[in-house]
């Protein structure tokens, strides 16, 4: 049980309504599996805190198999009504931005305030949820819409996300399994094998490129950091060559971030946005990032060499 449980219940409720709607969409050829997908997600979100983890795990595998075999299909989307849009644009003009801007403003204000009392991550998540609720209330009042309509529109966006929605969650699962299986130690040893340890620049390059490579595999620079830093940075660069640790690890982490830009394993940054923008190519965002990430990684290697040995 965490302070975030009410958020998960809200999310579960949204998924439950999506399941209900999917179950009634007669024209959908994958009606049963789509409804089951949303219903199972609703269950693991609502009951995850007290269900035995093995049961949750089994349901998650089922969810992933449904998604993985193409069992999730969106219902036919009612096209947006151009007359309605034109009318509200004419009536409200720039005031339409107000609810959209309320989300970040309320979120940031409450997150900064909440940090004084609770853990920063919890504070920002609760603040974001509150921001959404405030914006939704203002939006419904301003647009004279029933909240039910907002939920229906959300279903359309959930359909657009489809399997991409659960990818970040199954990747978190994969990260936990990789950690348990000791993938990190093997990768660190692999990186460590080829380094001419007497050459400071080679060690710098191995640390920075190793952080990027490991992040590409794990999808998360935070997972790569302890392994690569304990395996390469501390013994070789700090211990043997006398690098300054503060700047060294900061630039190491940022090299990992260059890897984050390059990998489908960082799904919440790279794949989910592609789905959210309804792009045909789910790797389009990564393709766009390659030419920024690679020069930046090279810059990081140079910065690390000159700053950590200043």
């Amino acid at each position, binding site marked *: 049980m965490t302070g975030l449980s009410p958020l998960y219940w809200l999310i579960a409720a949204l998924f439950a309504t999506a399941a209900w709607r999917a179950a009634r969409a007669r024209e959908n050829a994958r009606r049963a599996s789509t409804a089951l997908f949303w219903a199972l997600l609703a269950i693991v979100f609502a009951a995850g805190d007290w269900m035995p983890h093995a049961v949750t*795990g089994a349901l998650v595998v089922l969810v992933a198999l449904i998604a993985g075999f193409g069992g999730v299909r969106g219902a036919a989307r009612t096209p947006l009504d151009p007359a309605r849009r034109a009318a509200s644009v004419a009536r*409200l003009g720039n005031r339409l931005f107000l609810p959209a801007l309320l989300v970040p403003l309320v979120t940031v204000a409450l997150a900064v305030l909440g940090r004084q009392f609770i853990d920063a991550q919890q504070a920002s998540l609760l603040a974001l949820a509150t921001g959404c609720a405030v914006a939704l209330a203002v939006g419904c009042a301003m647009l004279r819409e029933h909240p039910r309509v*907002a939920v229906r529109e959300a279903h359309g966006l959930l359909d657009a996300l489809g399997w991409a929605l659960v990818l970040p969650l199954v990747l978190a699962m994969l990260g936990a399994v990789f950690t348990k299986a000791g993938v990190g130690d093997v990768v660190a040893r692999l990186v460590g094998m080829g380094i001419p340890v007497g050459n400071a620049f080679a060690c710098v390059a191995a640390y920075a490129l190793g952080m990027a490579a490991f992040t590409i595999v794990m999808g998360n620079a935070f997972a790569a950091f302890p392994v690569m830093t304990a395996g390469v940075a501390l013994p070789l660069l700090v211990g043997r060559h006398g690098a300054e640790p503060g700047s060294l690890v900061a630039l190491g982490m940022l090299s990992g971030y260059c890897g984050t*830009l390059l990998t489908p394993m960082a799904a919440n940054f790279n794949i989910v946005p592609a789905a959210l923008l309804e792009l045909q190519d789910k790797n389009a965002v990564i393709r766009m990032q390659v030419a920024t990430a690679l020069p930046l990684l090279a810059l990081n290697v140079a910065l690390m060499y000159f700053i950590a040995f200043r």
Partner: protein
Amino acid sequence: MSWWPLAGVALVIVGFALRFNPVLVVVVSGIATGLIAGLAPLELLALIGESFVKARYLMILVLLLPIVGLLERNGLREQAQALIGRMRRVTTTRLLLGYLAVRQLTSSLGLNSLGGHPQTVRPLLAPMAEAAAAREHGALDPARREKLLALCAATDNVGLFFGEDVFFAFGGVLLMQAFLAENGIELEAWRIALWGIPTAIGAFLIHAVRVHWFARRALRPKGPA
């Protein structure tokens, strides 16, 4: 120590390369890696369940969908496009670089949730960029539009990643500080965060060149205009 744990990594790479569904690839690799590592099936399911429960916060974005959907139904994109359509000085390059600068600066002050793909990219930045590009180059064909939208998402990522690490109370900075402390190196957090600044500036400059190039070349219609 054996090399067997790498089999899971290999499965992921092969699966992604052969374009199987990513969710399927990840789950199969997870199960295979767990079993190779000698976990009992029930133990493995429990590990999967536990990590899923802990990662549920990643799904918080769905709470944004009702308001975003409601606003789009009522013409938010059209209004965003109209606004940019009137602002003649706002080119695609200026819009994206302005967004990048604001995203980097606010993230470096710890205000991460001021932007994001569901909050700002889909409802605001993307339609604005489309409007700016359409004014410069005429209506976009689907291929160029897709690239422009991908660049909007990429710009948000670059701004967030290479801003947040400059904030001294950012979780990542505290993680590095704690890790160094465990290894007997005591440092104030700002002495780590400070060294995020050169890369942040580099990220802005490199991405600026890319955006500029993209707006000049890639957005321009093919063939003689």
